[in-house]
């Protein structure tokens, strides 16, 4: 009964989240950056944005963000912007808001409530080895083959990609 109630509550929370109108995602330019007509470097430049300028994110593609600014709309590298703090949204500062840009998950669990604390340095320093937890950890380990089977079932295929800068 209690479990059913919990599920209902979660379903309600999910419904509320989905129903919530997506707030405009405001970003600020971290550095001067060209705004491109399409999400590729070879495309035409719409304008040149200055550091500190702001805009609204209306889409994304790979490393590119589609931005609406007073000077027009276009694409730029996501590295060149910073999302404005979303703390006002509650405990999940930034997380759920950015979720709307980066593909919202259906069930955002707000954990940063008052009175709840996480793992801190002292916890780590003072902890002792847990045999039982390590046995569990061992039990969950996946073989290479099982991992590959799982990946293939998800539609993933390996790609040949070199390391950046190839510093070995």
């Amino acid at each position, binding site marked *: 009964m209690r*479990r059913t109630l*919990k599920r209902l509550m979660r379903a309600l929370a999910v419904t509320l989240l989905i129903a919530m109108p997506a707030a405009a995602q405001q970003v600020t330019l971290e550095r001067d950056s060209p705004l491109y007509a399409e999400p590729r470097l070879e495309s035409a430049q719409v304008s040149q944005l200055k550091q500190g300028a702001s805009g609204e994110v209306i889409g994304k593609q*790979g*490393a590119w963000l589609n931005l609406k600014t007073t000077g027009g709309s276009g694409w730029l*590298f*996501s590295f*060149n912007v910073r*999302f*404005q*703090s979303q*703390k006002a949204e509650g405990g999940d*500062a*930034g*997380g759920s808001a*950015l*979720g709307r840009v*980066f*593909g*919202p*998950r259906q069930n*955002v*669990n707000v*954990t*940063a409530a008052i*009175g*709840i604390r*996480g*793992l*801190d*340095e*002292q*916890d*780590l*320093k*003072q*902890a*002792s*080895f*847990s045999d039982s*937890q*390590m046995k*569990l*950890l*061992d039990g*969950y*380990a*996946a*073989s*290479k083959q*099982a*991992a590959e089977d*799982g*990946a293939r079932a998800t539609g*993933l295929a*390996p*790609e040949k*990609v*070199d*390391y*950046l800068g190839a510093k070995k």
Partner: protein
Amino acid sequence: MSRAFKPWIVAIAFAAASWQSGAASLDLGRIFDIGKDVTDATKGMDEKDEIAVGREVAGRMLGAASLVPDPGLQSYVNRVGRWVASQTERPDLPWHFGVIDSTSINAFAAPGGYILITRGLYEILDGEAQLAGVLGHEIGHVVRRHHITVMQKSAAISAGARAAQGNRNQLVNNLIGTGAEVMARGLDKGAEFEADQIGIILAARAGYSPYGLIEVLHKLSARAGDDASLALLFKTHPNPGERLSQLGEALAPRLSTLPSGKEPVIRQVSADVPAAAANPAPAAGARALQQEEPAAPPRPAGKSGIGIDPAGVLRGIFGR
């Protein structure tokens, strides 16, 4: 592994603890003739030994925060992690992955392939590509042996090797006594930036969108600096904005050649699992200490505690 440590394991663990403490307040290398000692201390450290160190560290970590009691979730994270790890030069390490029950936003890697991610971090992820990016970063630390490499460069291992010839308390006292905080912040940042780059490439190799890690860094960058769940992160590591800038520079020349990859849906924590523990259960002794000394100011990292500091040996994406 036998719970009795080889002396050098203790030395390395403590060297790491000191290294992680942040500022380089003392260059032991200028005090000791470290070159020879460092070589001696790490000679003969093979993969088996590396795994032994990591296992001890992971076990202590799990003593501080248990695994989320959701076998389906844990198996899932292991499949994703192992698939990403299979794209590295060390595919046959005994890779272990776990989600620990903590509201903190963090992830940790210990030598030998032990990787733990907090539930707090897991729950802000929006897709499997983001998980792959985070795990890829941690895997990067392991693959490149950042713990070992950086420690070899630090003089702390020398002090540890000397001290390890005595008993364990002697070792601790020696390290504390010399204030062995030797690892320069710059090196630490360098390891993080490198792991970021590796994480992106490993995700791409595994068939995911390479940009999951970048999305996670954006999320963190947007979170307020006073967010308690990120305290350890902001204290010890380059800020997410700086990491994004570094990644941008490194990635820019390659953007057009990277595969776009897939963005599968991420598995949710089971609805039957209660919310993350309000207080991860530290060892009984630790609890007692907390009760006795409620007003005690936090002790400087790397200068306190008896025993191996798991936080010190762990390399994290957002913390240690």
